[in-house]
């Protein structure tokens, strides 16, 4: 048993930390720290800075132009990114489609798409969920019918995150209705400029514009845009879901949020005393901190297993449940720590050059919105209930 990182890993962490201190633009860090919305330009700007350093593809193997880092280094990198309040690297191309193409794509597909998802040419979005296919993803109905050298795609995708900026969408489509629902699904890459595609925004309860509906009407997709074999798409989709395993718990982000909450609770006063010393509030903060400490060890256990070449099973689902519940509790406590001021909706206070006066303390303009926004975390990426089904299936086996 050794809970410590190696000397080499410690030095690597320092290198990442030092580089981020030098290269992360202050305006981006400020936005991320205060949970203010990022523009497309913000995200692309940061992506290109990382790309120039060679760290954008931090989770890719060296043969595809990645860093070749193992799970532990990837984790350290992600943690330091979170501590520095760097904008998150959008997962759709780099973390989701990329690995699928590396494993199942043709050489041509790899050569064409992989560089373009790095250099800002292609913004990818994910076309999985449908109005009638949420947790029961395999029941999806968007149909792709072969017509010569093309598929003709008709249907509707939903919850398409940042689809309003996207150049391309990777879609699960139905190519067969024979056999089990999972056996008739294919994995298609679709250019968003193709006629027949319409993106309609969905406004979320926090007022945000993050997700969209994507309507597809007689969309012509060249057959060479099929990934792997027809009707094998479910296998690729599952591979994609299990690929992301080093950061599913969001340890770094939650540690960062906890530190921010502690600072807030030390500054907020109740009866002339810091809120952090209120016994009820202190107890809730302590409980979530302990949950986070435990989860951090669980996460390191999974990481050590992955580093040794093992593939975590039920633990990934456990970390998804725990990580999202901890995140949610932190947003709840942050909202509560703001008292009356959590009612105010004053996004202008996040703007550069805003001179006050602030209603809520600086950096906490939208705590209630953030709280509501985070309700999504236990729903997306396999809801808590689906994760519990998976845990049960893997361990009890029924």
């Amino acid at each position: 048993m050794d809970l410590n990182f190696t000397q080499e890993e410690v030095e690597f962490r320092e290198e990442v930390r030092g580089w981020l201190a030098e290269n992360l633009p202050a305006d981006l860090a400020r936005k991320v720290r205060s949970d203010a919305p990022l523009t497309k330009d913000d995200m692309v700007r940061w992506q290109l800075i990382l790309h120039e350093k060679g760290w954008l593809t931090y989770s890719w193997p060296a043969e595809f132009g990645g860093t070749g880092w193992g799970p532990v280094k990837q984790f350290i990198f992600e943690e330091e990114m979170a501590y520095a309040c760097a904008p998150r690297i959008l997962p759709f191309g780099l973390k989701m489609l990329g690995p699928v193409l590396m494993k199942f794509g043709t050489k041509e597909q790899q050569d064409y798409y992989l560089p373009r998802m790095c250099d800002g040419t292609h913004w990818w979005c994910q076309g999985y969920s449908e109005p009638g296919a949420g947790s029961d993803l395999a029941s999806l109905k968007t149909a792709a019918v072969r017509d010569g050298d093309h598929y003709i795609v008709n249907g509707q995708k939903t919850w398409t995150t940042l689809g309003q900026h996207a150049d391309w969408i990777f879609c699960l489509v139905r190519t067969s209705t024979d056999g089990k629902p999972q056996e008739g699904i294919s994995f298609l890459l679709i250019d968003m400029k193709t006629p027949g595609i319409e993106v309609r925004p969905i406004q979320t309860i926090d007022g945000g514009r993050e997700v969209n509906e994507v309507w597809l009407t007689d969309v012509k997709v060249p057959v060479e845009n099929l990934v792997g074999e027809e009707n094998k798409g479910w296998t690729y989709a599952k591979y994609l879901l299990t690929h992301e395993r080093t950061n599913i718990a969001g340890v770094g982000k939650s540690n960062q949020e906890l530190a921010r909450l502690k600072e807030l609770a030390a500054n907020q006063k109740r009866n002339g005393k810091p809120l952090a010393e209120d016994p009820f509030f202190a107890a809730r903060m302590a409980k979530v901190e302990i949950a986070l400490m435990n989860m951090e060890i669980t996460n390191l256990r999974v990481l050590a297993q992955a580093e040794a070449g093992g593939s975590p099973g039920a633990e990934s689902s456990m970390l998804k449940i725990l990580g999202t519940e901890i995140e949610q509790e932190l947003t709840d406590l942050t909202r509560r720590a703001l008292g009356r001021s959590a009612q105010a909706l004053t996004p202008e206070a996040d703007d550069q050059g805003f001179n006050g006066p602030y209603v809520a303390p600086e950096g906490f303009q939208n705590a209630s919105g953030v709280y509501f926004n985070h309700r999504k975390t236990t729903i997306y990426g396999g809801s808590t209930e689906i994760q519990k089904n998976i845990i049960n299936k893997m361990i009890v086996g029924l």
Partner: protein
Amino acid sequence: MEFTHTDTRRMLADTIDRYLRDKYPLAARVEAGTTEPGFQPAQYEALAELGVIAALFPEDQGGFGGEGFDIAVVFEELGKRLVNEPVMDNALVPGSILAAAGQSDAVENIIAGAARYALAAEEPQALYDLTDVETRAEATGDGWALTGAKSVVKYASGCDGFIVSARTDKGVSLFLVGADQVSLRDYVTVDGGRAAELTLDGAAGQLLGDEGAGEAMLQEAADRAVLALSAEALGIMQTVREMTIEYLRTRKQFGVVIGKFQALQHRMAEMLLEIEQARSAVINAANALSLSGAERARIIAAAKYSIGRIGRLVAEESIQMHGGIAMTWEYDLGHFAKRLILIDHEWGDQDFHLARFIEHGHAA
């Protein structure tokens, strides 16, 4: 990072596991827990012979371990089989205090299983607070005379001596008191075992360590005890986990095995996930024994808090998922559940340790 035990510790775990599997039937343990002396002395001696006690002490004290992960490995194995031999109460805790006070002969006898001591620290009014000490020690010509009362001293009957905390003008100190100097009112405990109320009326005592150094010595012992209890609880949880999985796979109602019902699947998933968190808490605490100050105190408090919370969840949920059968004395599960719950009543419950965690956070 490395999350597997050393070969030596794995061998130790295997040895204990094999012995208990072959030679430690639960029925005998349950029976012993309801009668005097509350455990099976022959088993205790056999465990000592196996090296179970020696593993808890470092080499310079006559053992071959003594680190946090040694303690964790031993007690996790004992927990799996619901062992109620007083390895913690009569060996680990008093032994570490006696070793710190330079009583090497006594420690040697403890490691050999030839002598048993008990710590008598908590008082009836104290609710886990080891510094809430009303027992007094007065200096006599050649020693000390102690007067006061100690509560729920586990496995006190038959001990060769007691380590008693008492107050002098310089604060709390620890004293070694002979078994003939105390009076005991002995009783069974809910989880199967024995304890006693201990009273002192001018009992002759020998000062252990420096006068006034008692609180620090007690805290050192408490950290070890908390780790041992947490690891024991983890072992118990694993057995409960296996029993519950087996039951969900075999018990039929409405024509199907009950593990097919999602209401139970989700309860079970929650329990499985929390047990992994308990394991992480124990690993963290075992590691923390080599740390110091507020960091160590916080991690150990966090572990006992976690064990208290998760222990209750596992006890209650496993009974609920089993249904009526788990309510019977005859079925094994209830005995494991009782020990899990009662562990929260030793060395500070979850609220006590949550408060401790917060207190040391302010200090940090």
